[in-house]
């Protein structure tokens, strides 16, 4: 797996992601994080930002990895795409897994590439049998190539496909059953999608296969309206976590117990203390959920 005797790797923090709160790592925060020795459960990075050969990004990430567990989150593999996975990209993901030994590795139920064009967005997948088979084949290939179990993140969507024949939850459950992959439960995505498609987020979460969940994501969204003036929430990751999302999160961890929880803030990135305050807010909820007596018997 890794070159034995490498001093940098021997002194690394344990790889396992604890059931604590973490933050999406932003280059502009790294100096402050390292200087303050921030008390935080873990960091998560977008894999594609570390696919260069060398330079400051890898030095910084290795410095973070020395002190903290790391979660590796891919955003560009196009698992939901109609075409075969990009083998070179898959090898790069496998290489990052070997190099940084992340405690968790995740990707999205979405597509982003058609032919050779990469769209840099998480585009929606129709929920029908053909798409289910493709997604499962792709996840099998990922798990075989990378040599580990991956987590698949539930999407935020703005449109539904007329051709869909099953619900998103049935689609996700069938994927976990066929491939053995875990799930990354993005509760902001649940709130965004359920609002956008006029469903109940509480009902969605009540039926979510929580036993497959290895990590939770929380992030901010932007309000808008659709063609008919109905609320349309945009998964913007550009602000604090919404109160409605905090409430859903509290109920999930109260019922399920603590899970590794990431705060995502990718656009209009604030100063580190602002992001860290969100991490601490999630941590307080996790601590309460971990206290015996407060957790509802399952």
């Amino acid at each position: 797996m890794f070159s034995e005797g490498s001093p940098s790797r021997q002194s690394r923090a344990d790889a396992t992601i604890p059931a604590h709160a973490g933050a999406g790592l932003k280059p502009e925060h790294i100096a402050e994080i390292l200087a303050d020795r921030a008390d935080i459960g873990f960091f998560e990075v977008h894999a594609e930002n570390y696919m260069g050969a060398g330079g400051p990004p890898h030095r910084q990430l290795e410095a973070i990895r020395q002190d903290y567990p790391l979660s590796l989150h891919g955003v560009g593999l196009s698992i939901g795409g109609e075409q075969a996975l990009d083998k070179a990209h898959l090898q790069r993901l496998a290489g990052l897994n070997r190099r940084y030994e992340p405690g968790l590795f995740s990707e999205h139920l979405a597509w982003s590439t058609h032919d050779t064009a990469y769209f840099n967005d998480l585009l929606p997948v129709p929920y029908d049998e053909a798409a289910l088979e493709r997604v499962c084949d792709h996840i099998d290939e990922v798990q075989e190539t990378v040599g580990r179990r991956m987590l698949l993140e539930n999407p935020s969507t703005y449109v539904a496909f007329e051709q869909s024949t099953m619900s998103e939850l049935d689609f996700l459950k069938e994927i976990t059953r066929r491939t053995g992959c875990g799930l990354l439960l993005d509760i902001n995505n649940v709130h965004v999608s359920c609002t956008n498609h006029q469903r109940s987020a509480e009902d969605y979460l009540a039926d979510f296969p929580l036993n497959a969940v290895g990590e939770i994501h929380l992030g901010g969204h932007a309000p808008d309206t659709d063609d008919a003036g109905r609320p349309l929430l945009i998964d913007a990751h550009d602000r604090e976590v919404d109160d409605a999302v905090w409430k859903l999160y509290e109920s999930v961890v109260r019922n399920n117990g603590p899970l590794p929880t990431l705060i995502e803030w990718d656009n209009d990135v604030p100063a580190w203390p602002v992001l860290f305050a969100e991490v601490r807010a999630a941590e307080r909820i996790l601590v309460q959920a971990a206290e015996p007596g407060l957790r509802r018997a399952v």
Partner: protein
Amino acid sequence: MAAPKSLSSVAGLTDVTVRTGSGEFGRALLDPEAAPPAGLVGPDGKAAPKRFNVYRNNVIVSLSEALGQTFPAIVSLVGDDYFNALARAFVTRHPPQSPVLMWYGGAFAGFLESFPPLAAYPYLADVARVEWAWLQAYHAADAAPLDPAALSAVAPEDVPAVRFTRHPAAAVVASKWPVLDLVRANRFATDAAAGIDLDEPQAVLVTRPDLEVGVFLLRPGGEVFLSALLEGSTLEGAAASALEKTSEFSLPDCLSDCLSSGAFTAIEGY
């Protein structure tokens, strides 16, 4: 989600549910004039163009922002509003070919050069070439630069025939325009833009000996000399090419600049 009723259940026809392929979806993302793909609906089962436009907007805006982060001097030179329009034109014609966005924008300089509305600003393309070289140097493989004293280990009679191994981050950009002054003034804001003489040609070496990317001004003939060395010429051959270009070329000065700035990692065979 309630599945929208297909016509078949009403009219007894075979299934006529519209299937939405990603080819059609992708084409519509990059063409603002195109109708949204058929088969995409809102919660009422009806077409919802504004909803599709969220994806369109995400694609164009996020890729334009990625370009703006790679080419901040171009943003500064043309202004935010013009850059957004320019980026939109580039993104729709040249979408990324890889999910690794640090590799997106290699075609931007050529696009600027051939974009008719910018014909009066011919220096923009070379500024973009320096910024592209900067990004590639930033992400290039790490390598220790050649110790400038290493050449003294070569026997004097062998010096003319030495070849150097290129540093993975090293690139030369030669321009008819003062690219270094333009990049400095618009990217690093260390110099005032006021004093820039647009008639002054400049050539630069971009490299990263350690963690910091450096942009070094090359002396007259230096661009020919260093380009030849980076392509594998002998020292003697590179110097001859440079002298052919300009009699102002100084071998000792240019060689010393190249060695001290981290253009090479080794002397081949040593």
